[in-house]
């Protein structure tokens, strides 16, 4: 098990080196590397017959794409003039995202992995479709919204799992990352009173009053927890059915479930 952690740590260091452009780092934050996604990718790729170097290049490239997409989420919306102190940071955030995106393509072309270039570029295209639908509130209902949130967070990994024919981990990635995302939203909400997802649910209410009449922020939070329970149920079922496989990933998921603070679940259990 320690070897796995070492391997992942090694890949993480490789990514850190690639994204650290000296001038960019003077103005923008060091990108965050999502460890859960690394664990998922590692588990998918370890099931294949691919050599270690190939696994590494796919993991690094995928995480570069994720970092690129995440970086562009940080581009500010507020109208500021050209000489505003934040302008340079904004400009470099745009370019950093493009730079990281270029790096994934460059890396995969160097290792001659044309198939993976196709898999990732298709995923980026679709992720941006989902992002814009969420942003523009072009959503049918709550399920549509939750599904798109899940897709934004997991489509890169889902596409890779699908490419290697691992449907179990494709579905797991979607539910695991969704539960994680909703949990983070819940924590943000309880700490700061802010949550993009909760606000969106309330906006959906305004858009279609008949469907969500009377949903206030606390009720929106309850809807999130209900969805989380669904995802956690999926994760628990997965763990039950995979007692001898994906040991490393299973351990991570079990840790995650144990750390969750599902208020509603507790309340239901306590009657």
């Amino acid at each position, binding site marked *: 098990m320690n070897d796995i952690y070492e391997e992942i740590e090694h890949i993480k260091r490789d990514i850190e080196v690639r994204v650290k452009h000296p001038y960019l780092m003077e103005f923008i934050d060091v990108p965050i590397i999502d460890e859960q996604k690394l664990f998922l990718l590692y588990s998918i790729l370890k099931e294949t017959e691919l050599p270690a170097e190939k696994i590494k290049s796919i993991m690094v490239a995928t995480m570069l794409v994720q970092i690129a997409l995440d970086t562009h989420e940080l581009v500010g919306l507020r109208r500021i*003039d050209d000489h505003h102190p934040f302008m340079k940071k904004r400009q470099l955030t745009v370019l950093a995202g*493009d730079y990281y995106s270029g790096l994934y393509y460059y890396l995969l*072309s160097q290792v001659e992995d044309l198939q993976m270039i196709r898999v990732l570029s298709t995923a980026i295209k679709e992720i941006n479709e989902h992002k814009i639908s969420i942003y523009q509130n072009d959503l049918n209902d709550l399920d549509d919204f939750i599904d798109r949130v899940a897709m934004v967070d997991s489509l890169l990994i889902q596409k890779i799992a699908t490419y290697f024919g691992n449907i179990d981990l494709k579905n797991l990635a979607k539910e695991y990352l969704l539960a994680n995302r909703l949990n983070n939203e819940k924590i943000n909400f309880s700490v700061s009173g802010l949550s993009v997802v909760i606000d969106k649910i309330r906006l959906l209410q305004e858009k279609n009053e008949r469907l969500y009449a009377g949903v206030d922020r606390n009720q929106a939070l309850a809807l999130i927890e209900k969805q989380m329970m669904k995802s956690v149920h999926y994760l628990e079922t997965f763990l039950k059915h995979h007692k001898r496989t994906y040991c490393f990933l299973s351990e991570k998921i079990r840790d995650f479930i144990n750390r969750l603070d599902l208020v509603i679940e507790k309340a239901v259990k306590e009657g």
Partner: protein
Amino acid sequence: MKLKKLYTFINSELDLIEKALKEAMQADNPVLKEASMHLLQAGGKRIRPVFVLLSAKFGNYNIDEIKDVAVALELIHTASLVHDDVIDNAELRRGAPTIKSKWDNRIAMYTGDYIFARAVELMTNINKIEAHQVLSKTMVDLCIGEIEQIKDKFNWNQNLRTYLRRIKRKTAILIAVSCQLGAIVSEAPQVVQRQLYRFGYYVGMAFQITDDILDFTGTEKELGKPAGSDLLQGNITLPVLYALRNERLRKEIIDSFDIKNNKENMQHIITLVRQSGGIEYSKRISDRYLQKAFNILKELPNCQEKTALLNIAKYIGKRKF
């Protein structure tokens, strides 16, 4: 003479490219589709697809294959413009509101990312890994060029070499690679691939220098944006670099800039740059690049594509907007 008249013999192929560009932007989300089409419909010279097609004619020309390369390059150019408008805080592009202005920065970021991804996805139809190695390196270099441009903003002490390296990465490489990829994908001889790359590079350098000149000589109507926009952004281009060599002008330009960047002040700086001889100097440098491009063409086999490349290079040297 209009640019399009120089290569009428590829009109039917260019129509195919135009159709393919529209098809490539058919997103499911209506806003994404509209935003993607927005810039495409605003026009543009489609100079990169033209270079791809003409260069491909020096090898085994297959329009079905080369079409994807031409479309991908135009999409990369388009996506970079969408993100550039966020970087430059630009309200107008080709005389029309920018995506970031019509919608907002977030839509511009998503649209740019979508178009970049679509370009790479289309390129994966090309089963020649060398083409991907060339293009991916170019995309990274384009970003580095833009990062350097920001780093060099308002750096009144930068030199000619810094400027030339910057415009190479910012503009010339993508034109050079348009020519090179046309040749690679059509499997033209390696020597021809290199020659076409060099040709594109020299033309690209001349193209950008001409753009930088027009920023001081063009009208707002011709440029689709206010004259002096580059300098207002802090981009020190060749005409300014030349003007800065004169100590008196240097002081006046820098001082004027420090006071206030209003329209009258900018007009004064434009006048100073024009009076400095910077426009004529820049034209001479641009002409030197064009001459190098002409010399490269002499080494290529005679054909109508070569004549078209020659005429495009000449046009670029003379263009007024």
